[in-house]
Structure formats: structure tokens, C-alpha cells
């Protein structure tokens, strides 16, 4: 009896495997997006991460005008996965994460033509002007003494520069003025991502440097990207730092500090 049961199990598993493989056989369609003009021609499926600038721009540019359809994913990585499987035609996303995705996936490429230019800044509640002034002053100092540049180079520099200049807090840093709580969405390399169970990246280091200047202890809270501004306005966190672009819609709800980085929105497509 036992033996018979084993046989059945094996049979059932084999059947299950066959069924799942039969569904995989389909081929991935050829890339049809080679320039912005191809997107303007219409009829494409654009993948984005919900609430990002890629989402906002492509919604305004294409979805509202019924030119292309926009598919929104929780994570940029999910959109890229769908692109690889041919479920969508391209992904519009910030240039740095795009480079990371393409580096890891040789079957993808970034189009030379950027989709849009943008500036990153920290979001902060409108009532919190005192903190905003403090942060702006700290940012100006960090820009002038080269700290900001060396933080960026540590993550996105040339191969020789990468990993060479990690930010370290000064030895005698004081944290007497309390906490600086930052909201982020740590799925956005190289700006913020997990490494050894810790959130690292340009934004994390830059915020740490700002906190050191302010005499506060940095605390990072990871959340969904589209919850960050809600957390800032609700006063749950002090600042939102997540490669966040300054846009008109966002300015209706929050203030932004001075910009600390410039970036581009680019288009990822399948290489073939």
C-alpha cells in the first residue's frame, strides 16, 4: 500500500511539472521601441513603478492622450521582469536604477535618448520651514566641501572610483538634538537598497551626512514609495528621501529642500 502511494505521488508530481512546462514554451516578441518616436507612434505598453516620475510623466504624456497604455508595478524590478518576459514593451525609470537593472540583465538595454530630465530633493512638511532651512544650509556645506560628490562617486563613479570613498560620520559627532527620521523606499539602487540587512545608498549616506551636520541621529524607515509623502505630511517622519523628483503635484502637498542630485528618466527595452 505504501509503495503504491509513493508511485502516485511521483506520478502526480510529474503531471504537475509537465503542465507548468507546457505553459512556458512561448517566445518573447522582438523589441519594437527604439526611440522616443516609436513611443509617440503609440500602441505600446509602458511599465513603470507606481507613483514615480516615470509613472507621472508617462501618464500625462501617453495615457491621458490615449496613445500608449501604462502598466503600474509595486517595484521597478517587477516591471523589468515583465519586460524580460515580453509582457510589456518598455520600462520608464530613473537612469541610475536602470543602469543597475541592465548591468544584471544582458538581454536588456537603455535607449540613448533620455525620456526626461529631473532633479532630486528631500520632501519635508510645509510647516517645517525651520528644519528645511537647516537642511539647506547643511546641503550647501556638503556640496562645497566635496562630501556630496564623494558620496555619489562611491556608488555611481567609474570602476576605479566605486566603493573607494564610503561616507563615515566624524568621530566626535554629537547627536544631542534628537532624531532625524527619514522615510524611504529601499528598492531603488543605487540611491537606497539593502546590503547586509542595512539600508545603504547615496540617499542614505547623504542623509547621514546631513544628520551629522544637524547634530541629530538618523533613523531610516522603509515603506512603499507612494506612502512617503503621506508619512511626511502626517508628521510620522521628518523628511522623505527616496530619489524624489520635485513636481507640481507633489508641491501641492509638501515642500522640497534644495536639490541634491540631478537625474534622467530613461527607457529600458529588450536588447533584441
Amino acid at each position, binding site marked *: 500500500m505504501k509503495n*503504491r*502511494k509513493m508511485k*502516485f*505521488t511521483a*506520478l*502526480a508530481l510529474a503531471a504537475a511539472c509537465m503542465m*507548468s512546462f507546457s*505553459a*512556458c514554451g*512561448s517566445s*518573447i*516578441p522582438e523589441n519594437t521601441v527604439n526611440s522616443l518616436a516609436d513611443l509617440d507612434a503609440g500602441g505600446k505598453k509602458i*511599465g513603470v513603478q*507606481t*507613483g514615480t516620475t516615470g*509613472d*507621472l510623466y508617462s*501618464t500625462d504624456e501617453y495615457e*491621458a492622450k490615449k496613445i500608449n497604455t501604462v*502598466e*503600474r*508595478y*509595486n517595484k521597478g524590478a*517587477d*516591471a523589468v*521582469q*515583465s519586460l524580460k*518576459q*515580453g*509582457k510589456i514593451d518598455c520600462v520608464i525609470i530613473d537612469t541610475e536604477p536602470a543602469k543597475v537593472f541592465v548591468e544584471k540583465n544582458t538581454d536588456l538595454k537603455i535607449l540613448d535618448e533620455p525620456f526626461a530630465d529631473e532633479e532630486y530633493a528631500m520632501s519635508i512638511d510645509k510647516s517645517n520651514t525651520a528644519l528645511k532651512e537647516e537642511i539647506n544650509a547643511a546641503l550647501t556645506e556638503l556640496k562645497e566641501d566635496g562630501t556630496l560628490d564623494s558620496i555619489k562617486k562611491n556608488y555611481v563613479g567609474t570602476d576605479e572610483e566605486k566603493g573607494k570613498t564610503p561616507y563615515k560620520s566624524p568621530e566626535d559627532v554629537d547627536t544631542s538634538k534628537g532624531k532625524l527620521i527619514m522615510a524611504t523606499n529601499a528598492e531603488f539602487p543605487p540611491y537606497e537598497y539593502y546590503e547586509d540587512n542595512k539600508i545603504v545608498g547615496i540617499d542614505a549616506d547623504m542623509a547621514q551626512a546631513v544628520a551629522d551636520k544637524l547634530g541629530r541621529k538618523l533613523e531610516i524607515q522603509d515603506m512603499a*514609495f*507612494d*506612502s512617503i*509623502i*503621506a508619512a511626511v*505630511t502626517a508628521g510620522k517622519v521628518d523628511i522623505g528621501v527616496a530619489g524624489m523628483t520635485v513636481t507640481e*503635484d*507633489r508641491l*501641492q*502637498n*509638501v515642500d522640497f529642500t534644495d536639490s541634491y542630485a540631478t537625474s534622467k528618466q530613461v527607457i529600458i527595452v529588450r536588447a533584441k
Partner: protein
Amino acid sequence: MSHFIELFHRDFIQDNRYKYLLTGLGNTLLITFFAVLIGIFIGFLIAIIRSSHDKMDRPGFLLNFLNLLSKIYLTVIRGTPTVVQLLISFFIIFTSPNASKLMVATLTFGINSGAYVAEIVRSGIMSIDAGQMEAGRSLGLNYAKTMRFIIMPQAFKNVLPALANEFIVLLKETSVCGYIGLADLTRGGDIIRSATYDAFLPLLTVAAIYLIMVCGLSALVGKLERRLRTSER
């Protein structure tokens, strides 16, 4: 008040944002409806296999095999989270570019629901006194007919509240569709939320729509229950 009107305008009127909720609602209803049908079909089939197997002294080769398959299905489906099943369907099984998200979601939720419906229906069948089967058989009905005309109608009435519960859960469970980028009702609210950065109105509206749907469903089931009860006399 004017602030509220402004918010309302920004959340729903501007750029026709209410359409996200409408298409989302449509998708949610479509997925739930067909998933319920699939769930009922799979559920009843498995429940009959399992209860027939359990009631028989010497189940044959085929029944043993089907029972084992059912058990594997129940274990796997009930042992893994729906979200994970949805992601597996979308990213591993249906990798084809032509596989529609709606189809993937409907199948996943249908197969998921089937496992729960199966056990609910089995509990109903097992709750019917063995004498009912004996009575049916001594009236000259064969096994299948006794099942169909005597056991199942009684079992169905017993499990109706539990079944309604399962379908309510299913309706709300579809809110995880956003994981595969499918614009269901919850996702519709999220899209508005991510465009306007207002959490208040979109979330409350979405909650209210789910609540209304569940109330409607409960009312329908209540009506059915009452009708079945009157036929008792």
C-alpha cells in the same frame, strides 16, 4: 468644506481620475465572478471525491488516486499565501506575453478558492446522516442519484453561510492583484493616491465600495437561505 471639495475634485474629477476606480471595480468584479465559478466547480468536484473516498470501505484504484491528487492540491493551495500563488502564476507559469493579467488572476483566485470551497462542501456532505444515503439506496436510487437528489441539496443548505463567507473573503482577497500590476479596485485607489498624495479620500472610497459589494453579496445569500428554508416545510 471648500478644502474637502477641492480634495474631492483633485482626487476624482481632475484628469478623469474616477476612471481608475471604475475600471478597477470592473476588474475586481470580473475576477471575483469567474473565480467563484471556477472555485465552485473545483470545490464540489474535490469534495465529492474526498467524501466518497472517506465513506467507502474499499475505495478502488481510481478513487485512491484521485483522492491523493486532491489532498496534494489542498495541501499546496492552503499551505501557501495567495499573493505568492499569484506571483508564481504570473512570473513562472504564465510567462507568455499573450497571457492576459485578468486571466492569470481569475485562474489563480479560482484555483485558490476551490481548495477552501472543497473542504467547506465536504464538511456539509459529511454532516448528512448516513441513514439518508441508506434510505436513498433502498428506494432504488443508485449512488450518483442519491448524492444528487438527497445528499447534495441538504449539504448545500448547511454550508451556505460558510460558502458565503468564502466568497466574501475571495472578493476582498483580489485586492492583492496590484502585485502583478493589474489595476483592480484597490490598485485604482492606490494610483489616485500616488498621483495626488492624498490618502484620505481614495482609501475611504475604496473601502466603502468593498463594503457595499459585500453587503450586496450578503443580502443575496440571505435571500437564498430564506428561500431554501421555506422549501423545508
